[in-house]
């Protein structure tokens, strides 16, 4: 277990180092933030003063060396825009992203399991056809298009729901639905396939031969095995979600880490870009471990290897 965690951690640190280097220099290629933060009529002295204060006058390599030193001291930098430590800014946005991800995943996974399992029980019947086709559309529809179409229809034309922002239940409906669509579609396909395999398996025959009621055959014997495949895919989806649903958060003005990153890039708020990427990487690392542990808990064959 310890060996496994160490190996995982080493891999993550290596990957993160490469990523941070790339992000650091790429961000600086977007140009000097000075012009963005000072008014057009600001004097040359003021501009130079700003550059010097934030170290933008130094060569990029020197800036990088300083950044690495700061990181090792536990300092992820200072947000130019918010005038606060970047860590604070990112950690403030994070729960918003996590809440959205958690609600979305919960809905997508439970619905997908129900739909996938029932579709697999009677393949080729009406429910299966509607479910399979619907899930395929859901899995393939581009989220930016769905998001904007949904806003036009439900917020603009029908005026049933708010266009964007955060608040009570109505504010959750569109972002969660749009964000859940792809995971739901993918998972229905996975659960349906895995359930069909499980229902055709020898152990399901054994369960029937023992006189186990059909309900338990499906929802205990078969589904418990089909979940193994679902967890693998749901895990990937969960990892994809906790780095912020960039498009959905941006379109719906949802103040999560995805939107924060996009804003930070636009504003050349380098410290926030870097901090959000490092914190997201840490979250992904933890998430992956959580998924592995869940997988081990679900599949005894892996536990005993």
């Amino acid at each position, binding site marked *: 277990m310890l060996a496994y965690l160490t190996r995982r951690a080493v891999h993550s640190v290596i990957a993160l180092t490469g990523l941070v280097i790339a992000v650091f220099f790429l961000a600086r290629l977007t140009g000097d933030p000075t012009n963005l933060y000072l008014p057009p009529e600001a004097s040359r002295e003021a501009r130079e003063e700003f550059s010097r204060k934030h170290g933008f006058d130094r060569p990029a390599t020197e800036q990088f060396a300083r950044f690495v030193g700061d990181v090792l001291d536990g300092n992820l930098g200072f947000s130019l825009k918010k005038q606060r430590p970047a860590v604070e800014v990112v950690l403030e946005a994070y729960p918003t992203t996590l809440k959205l991800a958690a609600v979305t995943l919960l809905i997508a996974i439970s619905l997908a399991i129900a739909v996938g399992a029932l579709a697999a029980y009677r393949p080729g019947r009406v429910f299966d056809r509607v479910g399979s086709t619907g899930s395929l559309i859901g899995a393939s529809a581009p989220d930016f298009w769905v998001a904007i179409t949904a806003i036009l229809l439900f917020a603009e034309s029908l005026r049933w729901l708010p266009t964007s922002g955060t608040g009570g239940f109505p504010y959750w409906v569109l972002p969660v639905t749009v964000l859940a669509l792809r995971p739901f579609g993918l998972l229905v396909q996975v659960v349906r396939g895995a359930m069909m395999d499980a229902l055709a398996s020898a152990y399901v025959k054994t369960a029937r031969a023992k006189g186990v009621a059909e309900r338990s055959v499906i929802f205990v014997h078969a589904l418990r*095995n089909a979940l193994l495949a679902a967890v693998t895919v749901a895990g990937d989806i969960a990892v994809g979600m906790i780095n912020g649903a960039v498009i959905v958060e941006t379109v719906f003005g949802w103040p999560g880490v995805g939107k924060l990153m996009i804003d930070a890039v636009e504003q050349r708020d380098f410290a926030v870009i870097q901090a959000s990427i490092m914190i997201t990487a840490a979250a992904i690392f933890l998430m992956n471990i959580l998924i592995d542990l869940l997988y081990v808990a679900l599949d005894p064959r892996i536990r005993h290897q």
Partner: protein
Amino acid sequence: MPNADAPLLEVDDLRIEFRSGREIVRAVNGASFTVRRGETTAVLGESGSGKSVTAAAIMRLLASPPAHITGGRIRFNGADVLGAPMAQWRKRCGRDIGMVFQDALASLNPVFTVGWQIAEPFKAHGVLPAKAALERAVALLGRVGIPEPHARAHDYPHQFSGGMRQRVMIAMAIALDPSLLIADEPTTALDVTVQAQIMDLLLDLQRERHMAMVLITHDLGVVAEVADRVAVMYGGRVVESGLARDVLPRPAHPYTLALLESVPRSDIEQQQLNPIVGSPPNMATLPSGCAFHPRCRRATSECRAARPPTVKVAPGHHAECFYAQQVFDGR
């Protein structure tokens, strides 16, 4: 309680097809045999002869589609099996009839402990609550010869050896003391030394519990050792049936005879093996007349033209061959 002499299980003219697209595979083409209380009936045949499909049909485990039962009857304890509502039939599975499958690794659920799986019939049939059921499961594990049953009940199927897994399957099948045990090639997947142990265990349990057993097998040696009755299947039909002690020493069907001759013998000097020439029939395009005629030394134009009648060569000994009497008489 039905008459003790009445057959426990009757399979009568059973016909089963598998349909996929245009192709129709006629796996079982009018198979008939009976099983009496406390007796072992061996259903003997090559792969593809329809014996396992017949076993699955008795338990109503065939998936439809692709399988369709197109004719015949199955009676258990005098009651119609195929016509009963599924939910009602399911309540008899496990309680009145137990089944042991060939591949125990695939047939045990990989994500539940063996204790849980053996305890399940008690719970599913409302016989015992979970805790008591688990205690019974431990006792059953001990009965089928698993050492340290208390500890092993918490293990998963993949933690057992092939023979031990088959013991687990057997424990599960006999949990509710069924009056009939269907064992579908219970030893085929096992090492030769383990095969004998598993057969011995099955026989012990059968005697101890007065169970009837349907033993699906392709192993003549096993049949000779354990079977009271034998039904020989070929091309989806039972071509010869009778008491094992009548049929094996003096078969009346050329196929049974060829099978017996193909077994290598240790008591006489043999230059070579005597295989049955040709290969088992393609069940999608069965030969006309007697399905065995392309491989039969005695086949005549008659055998190609029409299905042979069932000939009674001795009381309770039947064979489906125009020349059954000649074969029986050794002519």
